[in-house]
């Protein structure tokens, strides 16, 4: 394999990436998406490489998506969930990671509820670290799969109006998306009740409003976020009913967006809280399942590029 175009050994977030790196990942993912359409879904690009999936926090989509990507690339995988391991016996995070590193994995894919854990491990381990979500900080692979989905539907980012609506305060998805979309020159507007809008988020180069109609006006992309009731959402609004009345995406509200606007959601959805089922299931508007499919392609691309692969070489090797 030849020298890849990513500067870091790790993928800790979107913040440190430059636009050309993002484009490289998206292009590589686009070329790899085809693997999933084959009858035999396997290429040897990461044969003999080992990936440890280290999930300290519940995850369905992200964990399965990484695992699928790893398997399609022929990597060996180890899955770690905090339950049923030495973590329950009080082993520290660093000791756990160092012990796993002693088994010579090539990658650690880590999900943790505390921001900065991937950075903490990356600075102490030689293994490549991929952030699969750290608290409310970043979720870079989600933002990349979102960008891939937007590019497929809209063909560009420049000047695109993206409204991101919901629990901004507790969302790592929104932070990675802000970095990603603003680096690609899209115009991002955030919308949430003031209780779910973190302070000074304007400093990240986005528009902010608590008026859902205003946010939807002329939007090309409407990204709905899950209201994270388990993370203190309860103090932020009195009831799901009142939340849905003001911030729930309905067909009527969606008319304010551009007629060809797409609706996205990183999942898992709370139907009837932030999004109505009729929109979520509308194949003309909702791209939610494309997001999931693209997730595998993006994760294959990242694993492959971080392993040192050159953008197109995986096909030749195959």
């Amino acid at each position: 394999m030849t020298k890849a175009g990513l500067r870091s050994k790790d993928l800790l977030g979107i913040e440190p990436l430059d636009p050309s790196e993002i484009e490289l990942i998206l292009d590589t993912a686009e070329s790899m998406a085809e693997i999933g359409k084959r009858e035999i879904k396997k290429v040897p690009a990461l044969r003999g490489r080992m990936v440890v999936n280290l999930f300290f926090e519940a995850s369905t989509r992200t964990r399965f998506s990484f695992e699928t990507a790893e398997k399609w690339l022929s990597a060996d995988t180890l899955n770690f969930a905090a339950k049923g391991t030495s973590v329950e016996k009080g082993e520290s995070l660093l000791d756990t990671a160092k012990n796993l590193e002693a088994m010579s994995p090539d990658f650690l894919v880590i999900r943790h509820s505390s921001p900065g854990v991937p950075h903490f491990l990356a600075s102490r381990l030689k293994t490549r670290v991929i952030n699969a979500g750290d608290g409310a900080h970043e979720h870079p692979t989600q933002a990349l799969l979102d960008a891939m989905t937007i590019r497929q539907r809209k063909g560009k980012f420049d000047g695109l109006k993206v409204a991101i609506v919901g629990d901004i305060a507790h969302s790592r998805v929104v932070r990675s998306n802000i970095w990603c979309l603003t680096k690609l020159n899209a115009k991002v507007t955030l919308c949430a009740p003031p209780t779910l809008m973190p302070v000074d988020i304007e400093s990240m180069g986005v528009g902010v409003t608590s008026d859902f109609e205003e946010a939807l006006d002329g939007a090309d992309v409407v990204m709905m976020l899950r209201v994270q009731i388990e993370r203190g959402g309860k103090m932020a609004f009195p009831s799901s009913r009142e939340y849905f009345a003001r911030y729930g995406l309905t067909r009527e509200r969606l008319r304010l967006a551009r007629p060809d606007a797409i609706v996205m959601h990183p999942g898992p959805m709370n139907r009837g809280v932030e999004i109505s089922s009729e929109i979520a299931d509308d194949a003309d508007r909702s791209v939610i399942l494309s997001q999931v499919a693209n997730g595998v392609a993006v994760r294959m691309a990242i694993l492959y590029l971080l392993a040192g692969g050159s953008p197109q070489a995986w096909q030749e090797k195959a």
Partner: protein
Amino acid sequence: MAGEGVTRLLFRGGRIVDPAAGREGVADLLVEEGRIARIAPGIDARDVEIVDAAGMIVFPGFIDLHVHLREPGFEYKESILSGAQAAAAGGFTAVCAMPNTDPVNDHRTVTRWIADRAHEAGFARVYPIGATTKGMRGEELAEFGEMKEAGAVAVSDDGRWVANGTVMRRALEYASLFDLPVATHAEDETLSGRGAMNEGGVSTRLGLSAQPAEAESVAVARDIALCALAKGRLHVCHVSTARSVALVREAKARGVRVTCEATPHHLLLTDEEVARSGFSTDTKMNPPLRARRDVEALVEGLVDGTIDAVATDHAPHHLDEKAVDYESAPFGVIGLETAVSLFHARFVSTGRVSLSRMAELFSSGPARAFSLPGGTLADGAAADVTLFDPGAEWEADPRAFRSRARNSPFAGMRASGAVAATYVSGREIYRRS
């Protein structure tokens, strides 16, 4: 306290900076039997041990109002001996030890034990601070009178705000009987939620749990109001917000007996440091590093006299305790061995603060805030002296720290100016090699 120097000692040719005595200029300083005997140019040098102080600054020994020595109970983090050695190496001749030990220093037996251990250690003087309430639980007052007799110089439930207003009022009232200051860690926990960092653009970007500046300011405002009501004596620990500084300034103007301290980390670093360091847990302390505008307000308070003292809030933790994720890490950073060089380089060398104001902030100011002896080189005072070499090249090197801990946010920083030697009652307790 520390043993008396038996010989006659002459500090020759240094710049004496002693604002409490209204003195600043190059002179010789003669110490006899551990006390300041005379300051004058060209003192006769026969039968004396000479300390060459040419090119150096001779300060009244520095006093740190706020340290955690961790003993008894947490000797794996720090001990009275290692803490007092760290203090000496940092130029401090006296430190005030917070009561959050195990057992809590809420009783004269603990107070006396700490004072005795410090005396045996024989480095910097250690003045115990007693707990405001029994067990620092914020419910019943501790025995201020007995703790004072045993050596306590102030009371504080440091780290825990006395949330019950009536308890705090009674503490201020009762402490006034003994003229003891009540030192407050001002933090309304219903607002702060013990957030890991300051709430602002940086915490938003990093997604960390955060506490707003108002969690401190609200608590400072209440404590000042209660101090006025109780006609007590309040000391606000580690002010870190612009609003807190303004509240203290306004209270002083009204004649309320309030003093306050600021830490080197709050004066030198902003919350951007959390991001810049890549989530280093050595940037996590409480109160947290604040916004640029807060730091600027703190510096104004240094210059205009609102801030009475620079105190380190030296809070040692074991390496393993800090080698965890940011949210889980304990609050606190060490500061004894970096405060003086960093402060001098940032504020004195740049002309923001004069040498005499630095002496007020490190010596006479803290002495006055807690009514401690020292803080001056006046005739007859104990010869507690900090010798500072403004030309020395200095680097914050955690491996060389006397402290048992390494949790400094300043590791690797360089400065011009270093503590050359430290004396307690004329006895050398530190000399830079």
